């Protein structure tokens, strides 16, 4: 394969929004994305991430979906891959810095809802929470949605030491050996829709909060030992803060604390861990976690 073929296939798999991309360091860059941009990524001159959603059939569509397993849990990634395999969908596992990405490529544009729900179904089949399934929105409104960093940075210069696809033996695959396989194994819209339609949507109701007068120190004493440790020590090294907050919310629910008490604990933890508390939408994000932990009604 020459470089042009490589880039062409790479673009066909990972294409997305053409007027903006995500920088490697984090943040949105409003600039045109062309085949040259992808080549620059593979050459290591400009590493970037792609926003998957593009206008499609009056809504939004994409050609790829990706579940970000942000911890070192290859078993879960393999489980997800097997779940797709059992529904005749080929999924690919990328080794990322902290964990794994599980990718599925569509043979043509599919509605964002279809891609997202197909992933959510597969997560339900393996009983593994879908924390970061991209596309993260079925409709991003006026925003761009979220981007995902591309694999194989600088691969054309030297084999990538991070962000590469894994073969069945958990060994790294070079871009040129993986690409033809990925292009051939793309999934039809009909197949994805069939799986997406199985998704059982969970209804969440935002819990009503009471006034909490007790101190956080007193409230945390009602929680279990593991909740206390999470609250006190924060995320494990290498784990992300939002996951820890999310896990803490569910633990507090299981411990029998009220939603109001859980909010107090989460806010206290967040102030120390510095994830949301300075963000304008910080409270909203924490309430989403509380709602997810306390408000499931299906």
């Amino acid at each position, binding site marked *: 394969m020459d470089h042009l073929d490589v880039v062409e296939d790479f673009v066909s798999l990972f294409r997305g929004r053409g007027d903006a991309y995500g920088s490697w360091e984090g943040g949105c860059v409003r600039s045109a994305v062309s085949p040259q941009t992808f080549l620059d990524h593979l050459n290591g001159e400009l590493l970037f991430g792609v926003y998957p959603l593009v206008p499609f059939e009056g809504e939004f569509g994409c050609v790829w979906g990706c579940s970000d397993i942000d911890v070192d*849990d290859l*078993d*879960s990634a*393999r*489980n997800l891959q*097997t*779940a797709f395999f*059992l*529904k005749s969908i080929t999924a690919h596992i990328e080794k990322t810095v902290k964990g794994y990405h599980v990718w599925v490529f569509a043979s043509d544009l599919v509605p964002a809802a279809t891609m997202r729900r197909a992933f959510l*179904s597969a997560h*339900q*089949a*393996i*009983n*593994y*929470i879908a924390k970061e399934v991209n596309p993260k929105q079925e409709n991003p409104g006026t925003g761009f949605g979220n981007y995902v960093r591309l694999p194989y940075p600088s691969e054309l210069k030297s084999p990538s030491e991070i962000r590469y696809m894994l073969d069945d033996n958990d060994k790294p695959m070079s871009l040129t050996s993986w690409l033809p396989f990925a292009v051939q194994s793309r999934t039809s819209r009909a197949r994805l829709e069939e799986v997406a339609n*199985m*998704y*059982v949507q*969970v209804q969440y109701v935002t819990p009503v909060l009471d006034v909490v007068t007790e*101190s956080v*120190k*007193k409230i945390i*004493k009602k929680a279990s*030992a*593991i909740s*206390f*440790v999470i609250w006190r020590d924060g995320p494990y090294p290498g784990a992300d803060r939002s996951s820890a907050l999310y*896990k803490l919310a*569910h*633990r507090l*629910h*299981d411990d029998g604390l009220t939603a109001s008490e859980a909010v107090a604990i989460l806010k206290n933890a967040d102030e120390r861990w510095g994830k949301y508390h300075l963000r304008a939408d910080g409270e909203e994000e924490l309430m989403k976690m509380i709602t*997810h*932990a306390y408000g*499931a009604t*299906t």
Partner: protein
Amino acid sequence: MPRLSPEEIVEGWKKVERGDSPPSSPTSTNYRLYEPLSSAADSYVHWAQTPHERVYTGITALDKQMRGIAPGEMSMLVGHSHGGKTLVLLHMLTQNRNKKIALFIPDEPKTLVLTKLTCIHHGVDANELEYRVGQDDSAAIQLLRQTAEEDFPNLAVFDQPLLPSDMERAYGEVSDLWGEPPDLVVVDYLELVEAGETVPAKAQFLKAFGRRHNIPLLVLHQTSRTSGADGRKLTMSSGAYGGEQQATSLIGVRRKKYEIMSEMTELLENLDRSHTERKQDRFDMLRYELKVHEYTISLSLMKNKRPGGSLVDDVDFELDINTGRIYELKSGELPDQYLKNVAWKEQPESF
């Protein structure tokens, strides 16, 4: 999560196809009792990293092996009646003045508890304290107040009958008063708990109480007459009708003098029937030992479920007869009170 077999994932898909409720969280399940074994790792990490949440006896040899009584655990202090259990307990209280402690002690009025604590903590002779308070000595009265208000401000004593509902109420009241639950709940003694007909049932109730509130529990327990009545060495089966099975650790308290007195009584009866020199020698030796152990109290660790912890054989303490204070005796060391007594009696002859 663990690697699943394709068959398990097929089952998972079947559930999704049936529209079964999806999981609400990665760890949350509908199980109420089951928890993965791995959660024990978290509990252990918490235990190991929070030694300050445990309560220590203040007795080095025991603390080294027990490494404290942790929240949810129950430790028992076992001994014969009048064998020094409450004295050892009061000694522990003096070692934990910074802890918030709820003491349930129905057979001892709180005035007596305060008086004993005053004597132990300040090294005051109980007779002298009583005399001076009787004489309206303001300093002595002030000492009592100081002990209650300044030296033991975090000690709540409940001398009412031990009904479960009252225990819950008292627990709630002190938690409310202190703004947090007690660091330790003490029950003196198990047989007085009015929950259940049998001793094991009472112990079970207390253990459940401790676990429900996630607090360390210290329970005093009177041994059966046959095994501990004469101050003989205590064993695992010394608990009256059981109850000790529920404990994480079992501390034995005894007065060796009772064992010696018992043997002397037996020997005297024997000597009346057949007098031998060997028996007479033994009797003389016991008379000497009785003088020594008039001032001792002995502790042992008879059960210890702490991994890596050992049992502890008799550790002898000198018991200050006047104040109730106890001091650890080094191996071979004789009690000061015995030595003073001997010296006082021998002095006239030596001059």
